[in-house]
């Protein structure tokens, strides 16, 4: 049988936190600036609130089926055939997220860091990293995320602190951006930003019960919201919204503007590890979720034989994009606009189904 290992609350929180937060380091702030101006920093709090609501459905579902992962619950709720289809949708969506992450990082590196390096090379290194960690298993990924959270957080906060010299509070205006309706609409729609919290449900067996998952999910979403909001605020303080929307990676640009005398300037390369490492962890976790779902759906007892195959699929699909614009306007846009459907709506439908069919331990819940 597939064994993912067991780990504690802190590892779970770090895993969720990094997985959710990593996307803010790339194109997300620019897209938000285009949609809602300089109000992204509080609009994301609306997204977080909606995500918490979505997570409450996931939690209620898991509470009814202790010691079961969400994929097993799909089977129980809908039967083998429909459960299989739903699991496949979730699994493929996870693969799609991984592809988007990989392509986005590759595009980012080609724009800012290594313009002459070919895509196959950058993505190749990425896939080797994912492959290695997938072989080692979820327990190692969780431990690594716990270990790396300290240098990542340190680097991230250093960038924000050193960027103080460029902050201009006038950039936060107009305070309501393009209008409250748009803020509310995009805030709700983009709750998918926090959708990766579903990994807690996919690997529910490793997280020591629903009570702990509730704690991990709430803290994970809240901390992620705080970090995302803070970074969006700093981006908005640094760049006027009409400039921010033109920048591929506002957070990286923010680090390039750090200038304290002749020696401390153009230090953005030092902080590269923050953006890259968080993306590595995030993509690996999501990719591992895909494999876990795939193995369960097709009743494959061991993950190892499918890792190489899955990595080859990831590698080839990640290469299928024209440029970073096509990634941002294509993959990322789809994930943000429709991500809530598989990540929050599917568990909600499942919850309704189990309540109607009176399945699970706590039928009065």
């Amino acid at each position: 049988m597939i064994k993912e290992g067991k780990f504690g609350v802190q590892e779970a929180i770090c895993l969720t936190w990094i997985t959710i937060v990593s996307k803010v380091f790339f194109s997300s702030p620019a897209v938000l600036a285009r949609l809602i101006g300089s109000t992204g920093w509080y609009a994301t709090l609306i997204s977080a609130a909606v995500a918490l609501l979505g997570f409450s459905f996931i939690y209620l579902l898991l509470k009814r089926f202790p010691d079961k992962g969400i994929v097993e619950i799909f089977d129980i709720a809908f039967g083998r055939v429909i459960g299989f289809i739903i699991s496949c949708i979730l699994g493929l969506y996870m693969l799609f997220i991984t592809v988007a992450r990989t392509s986005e990082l590759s595009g980012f590196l080609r724009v800012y860091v290594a313009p002459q390096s070919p895509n196959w090379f950058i993505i190749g290194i990425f896939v080797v990293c994912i492959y290695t960690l997938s072989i080692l298993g979820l327990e190692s990924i969780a431990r690594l995320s716990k270990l790396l959270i300290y240098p990542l957080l340190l680097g991230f906060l250093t960038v924000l602190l050193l960027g103080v010299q460029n902050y201009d509070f006038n950039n936060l205006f107009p305070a309501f951006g393009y209008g409250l309706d748009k803020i509310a609409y995009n805030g709700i729609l983009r709750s998918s930003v926090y959708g990766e919290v579903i990994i807690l449900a996919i690997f529910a067996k490793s997280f020591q019960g629903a009570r702990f998952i509730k704690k991990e999910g709430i803290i994970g979403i809240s901390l992620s919201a705080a970090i995302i909001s803070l970074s969006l605020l700093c981006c908005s303080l640094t760049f006027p919204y009409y400039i921010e929307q033109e920048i591929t990676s506002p957070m990286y640009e923010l680090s390039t503007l750090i200038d304290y005398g002749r020696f401390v300037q153009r230090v953005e390369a030092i902080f590269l590890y923050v953006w890259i490492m968080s993306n590595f962890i995030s993509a690996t976790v999501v990719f591992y979720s895909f494999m876990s779902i795939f193995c369960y759906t097709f009743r494959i007892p061991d993950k190892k034989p499918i890792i190489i195959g899955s990595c080859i699929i990831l590698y080839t699909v990640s290469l299928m994009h024209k440029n970073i614009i096509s990634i941002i306007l294509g993959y990322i846009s789809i994930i943000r606009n429709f991500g809530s459907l598989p990540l929050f709506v599917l568990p909600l439908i499942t919850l309704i189904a189990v309540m109607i069919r009176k399945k699970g331990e706590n039928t009065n819940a």
Partner: protein
Amino acid sequence: MNLILAIKNIIIYKEPKNTYEFELLEDEQEDMKSGADHTSYGNDTSAAQSLDNSNNVYKELNKNIEEIKQEFHFPTNKDIVIREFKVMRKTNACIVYIDGMADKSTINDYILRQLMTDQEMYEDTKISIDYITNNLLAINQITKHISLDQVIMQILNGLTALFVEGCEECIVIESRGYEKRNITKPEVEMVIKGPNEAFTENLRTNLTLVRKIIRNKELVTEFVPLGKTDNLTCAIMYIKGITNPKIVREVKRRITGLDVDIIAGSGGLEQLIEDHPLSLFSQLLTTERPDKTALYLMYGKIAIICEGSPYASLAPVTFFHFFHSPEDYFLHWQFSTFLRLIRWVATSLALFLPGLFIALTIYHQEMIPTELLFALSNAREHVPLPTLFELLAMEITFELIREGGLRIPGAIGQAIGIIGAVVLGQASVAAGLASPILIMVVSIAGLSSFAIPNYSIAFAIRLMRFVFTFFGGIAGLYGITAGIFIFGGLACSMKSFGVPYFSPIAPKTKAEHNIGIIAPPWTLKERADYLNTGNRSRTGGTVRGWIRQDKRGNDK
């Protein structure tokens, strides 16, 4: 054919083997009192007699002598001494020992003289094993064996075997007296403030050195034979009631499960019993200091000491333990904390500096301040080699000097090291083969590696430095980050006797204020949580009880 097999092995799926993986889980903690079974050194016959009876001591002395001669290839083998005589001038007997391993004065004065003296007043006494042990032999440590195999093993250890006509038991007398080195100063783990005793090659001396520090009746020493043909003895030390018995059992299981003719001391044993032998990181901590061994034993760890090896292997350990120096505990905690921070900086420099230099000069020149960039480009102007090749060449030269300096004896070795470094460095700059800045980078990285207190981990970092240099060369900081991710993942998947390698940070366990920054000694009240020790508390309440007493006194 081998290539085809290798490809086949990669492609074809094999079912995962159901190998037993030892885990130290909190909910499985066992009653410490029931603890580990132990057989202490110098016990009576009981431990030895459990072996099969197929090769027991004969009643007839001649048969025993013949058997011994055959087993030891006597008389071709000149080391073995078989001395026949009569006990109290009436019963035939013989002693067997290995020349040079046994102490001759013990044999002459306290075995032969005692046994061969004519005691007329006891003429009618029947000579038996019990009579000899109770009345004749003036030796403090004696064991009785019925298994001839056990007797042979003890003879090989330097003890003397006494066979008596008509007795089905053999007396094995403690008479070890081989040459041994005196206790000297530690050579690898030197300290300025602290004890200066190091282990020697003699097992008994090493155990005594530890016992001298821990004067606790709960300190248990178990002996386990190592190797199938060389009968090396290995001691397992732990403190009953503190050390988790599961760890003791697991260590014994692994050692007794070894099936190899000879084991090269503690270094060889470590590789055979550690959880991840393919990893660069060692999972047992080797030390030559008895005080460090004693300290770790008190923390709930196990010490494995092999005969003939001047080191103790400590387990379970975490990654952070490799950066602790014994001096940390003898200095003020603020000084120790500073030294530890320096060691962490040194580790980072030793590991990443050459890689970062390559990454910055090849891929991220924008980060280098303009003046420094000019200096760099001026220095490199006449160097024909690519930076990566130049750096690797200098690193290899540095390793050559280091290895060469070790092989050349004493003061000449040090001189060769310094002269080699200076002359080679200057000459290569003058010849236009390397730039001065690069030589500085290599030197700083090399110097930093000497600041790492553990030799095994320093070696691992030396090797990994090459990997990071390569990663930095092929993909800049992206490559280095990928390297950290891969090596970090591999290290996070490791365990040392069931304890995750990065405990107590990943996974998080209860705080241990001694892994990086040292907390004041009076706050270190508990043993590490991840060891699941029998007794977590190191104190009855307040470490500095005198403060409370003083206050009470003032109140009065």
